[in-house]
């Protein structure tokens, strides 16, 4: 097993893709904290179906990094027990679409343990799971179930959009004493995705946020990132959609302020409020289905907190309220056409 290696560019800045950044975060935390345990289906000897755990078992031993039976409720259940012992498990669920068998353990147990035991026991697990569409994954390899978790008190939900953030946020998630769902947008594991699916794929090494420092650093949970400043409108996005929204704004020449939320819970409501109060317009973009999606919560919060500053109704660009289709991927994916229409609508007054 060879560890994925960072490409070294002429300016000697280390550039990693998201997989390498995640691998490095796990490697660092396994080395720093003897209580960190990495486990899941195919994560051990093989190094994970997306290579995120490649080389880790060889380096840290098979009692620290190991394969599990194909049982999501078992994976999360034993992780809760390990947390009660005092370990810091980092279980992987191979696809977010397959997290549902583990929901009872996540919602009824991990999320509530600290509250119900009045802090006697904690569940410091970080559940990593590839999520999101844009890869022709069909119904069960494309879902974005973040709203199921943001609705559960006691769970934090983190979604990185760059290699730099992926490493720093994952380290912060592992160190957090609460259960964290860490969704990794698999569409952008190897490079940012503009949403212009007919254009060649960009690798991460040309993107400024693929410069990833060596060693330990963390990005605090609950802080949004301003992708670019602007005056015309505020765009709220996370994961893959950060890059899609940015590409559309650039293509249309819109002076939008784009916020990458990075963590949905805890939410950086101050950053959102400050931006919307400045721009007076707000567009929310997510891949997940529309009804009761996280966009609904964002829209309600923006309306409640910025009502007198809004120049137009809040726009949501989301997946349709259907299961994720296979052949109709680009009609379903909230890409440049639909984002463009929403921008036009927001700016028409």
């Amino acid at each position, binding site marked *: 097993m060879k560890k994925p290696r960072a490409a070294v560019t002429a300016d000697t800045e280390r550039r990693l893709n998201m997989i390498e950044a995640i691998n490095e975060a796990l490697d660092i935390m396994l080395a720093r904290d003897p209580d960190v345990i990495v486990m899941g289906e195919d994560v051990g000897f093989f190094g994970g179906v997306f290579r995120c755990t490649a080389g880790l078992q060889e380096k840290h031993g098979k009692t620290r990094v190991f394969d599990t039976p194909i*049982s999501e*409720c078992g994976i999360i259940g034993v992780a809760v*027990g390990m947390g009660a*012992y005092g*370990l810091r*498990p980092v279980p992987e669920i191979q696809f977010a679409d397959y997290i549902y068998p583990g929901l009872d353990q996540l919602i009824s147990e991990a999320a509530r343990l600290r509250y119900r035991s009045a802090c006697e026991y904690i569940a410091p697990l970080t559940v990593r799971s590839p999520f999101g569409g844009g890869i022709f994954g069909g119904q069960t390899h494309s879902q974005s179930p973040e709203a199921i978790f943001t609705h559960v008190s006691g769970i934090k939900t983190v979604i990185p959009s760059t290699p730099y953030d992926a490493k720093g946020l994952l380290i912060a998630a592992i160190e957090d004493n609460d259960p964290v769902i860490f969704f990794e947008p698999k569409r952008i594991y190897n490079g940012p995705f503009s949403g212009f699916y007919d254009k060649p794929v960009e690798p991460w090494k040309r993107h400024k946020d693929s410069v990833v420092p060596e060693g330990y650093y963390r990005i605090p949970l609950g802080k949004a990132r301003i992708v670019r400043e602007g005056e015309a409108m505020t765009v709220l996005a996370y994961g893959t959609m950060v890059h899609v929204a940015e590409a559309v704004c650039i293509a249309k020449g819109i002076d939008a302020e784009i916020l990458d939320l990075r963590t949905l819970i805890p939410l950086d409501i101050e950053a959102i409020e400050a931006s919307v109060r400045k721009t007076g317009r707000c567009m929310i973009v997510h891949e997940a289905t529309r009804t009761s999606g996280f966009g609904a919560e964002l829209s309600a919060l923006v309306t409640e907190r910025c009502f007198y500053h809004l120049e137009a109704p809040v726009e949501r660009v989301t997946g349709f309220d259907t299961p994720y289709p296979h052949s109709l991927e680009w009609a379903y994916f909230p890409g440049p056409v639909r984002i463009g229409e929403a921008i036009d609508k927001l700016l028409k007054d």
Partner: protein
Amino acid sequence: MAKRPEKPAHSGHNKPALALHVPEPKFRPGDAADFSHLEIPQAGLLTRPDETIHPSEIGDFAYGLIRVLGDDNLAHGAWDPKLDPDTLRTMLGHMALVRAFDERMFRGQRQGKTSFYMKCTGEEATSVAAAMALASDDMVFPSYRQQGILIVRGYPIVDMINQIYSNKADKLKGRQLPIMYSSREHSFFSISGNLATQCPQAVGWAMASAIKGDTRIAATWLGEGSTAEGDFHSACTFATVYNAPVILNVINNQWAISSFSGFAGAERTTFAARALGYGMAGLRVDGNDVLAVYAAMQWAANRARANAGPTLIEHFTYRAEGHSTSDDPSGYRSAHEREEWPLGDPIMRLKKHLIAIGEWDLERQAAMDLDCAERVK
């Protein structure tokens, strides 16, 4: 229902027509209860295998019944844990206190002092004797009917009541339904309302202990009804895959609220036999026989401590009272079941045993009863 397609000419015919089997308990309200169909072997018949034995060699133990206390009230056979009289008296005291506490809290609920309570009447041995066979720092993942573990581990009764009353002194700050105790100090895991979730958690705790090269083991309890949950299956799978130092106790008290054990599969096999398919050691014990429960638990603990793997113990017992203060069992089962139950009452059996070996008498019993009543006043 959707319209079904036309049957092709070549399709098979079932003779007779298919019939769904819906299990039905033997006795309903008004019926006389008769347990003569139950095979209750004599005490002391079974051998006691070495703790490190391979599960495939003790398959019979999953279908038999380990019993130590005989009809003569004496201890018999290889499973006799040979406990000294002081330990037996302590055990009796713990069980009596659990029962007195249950009675008192049940009354408290009827008086409106608490919203809810669940007794463990008739099942005291399965928590008291089991907990006494463990080290005090072995981690337990109980269900809601193992209050005896807290009594054994010296958790203050006042703290239990505070939790039940959700008062200012409640250590769980009134957040939890009564009896959902938690005490890290007593290695007692926070009780959850969601059934069987504690099983994979206990396995994970045991795996963690093994990962760290610790010496502590884990034990979990669940009712026979909850074995139907998926978490029980995942717990058994993970326990055997990683050879986790864990003991899975299935309390087969015959009833899951109003559903008899047949709805968890008891018509076809035993719950101990579930272990065999996983390659786990499975023991079936008389759950109303403190010596048998203690011995089985001690065997399983020794096995776990020797890195010989997990054990599933089925404690064959009877839920003598309603499921909870919200339940009236006269609506679904015969009122005679309790008196006809062939394995008797665990407290009475231990009391008779102590008297039979000359280590107890009615005077001391009366003093103990008085003391228990005082302590829960």
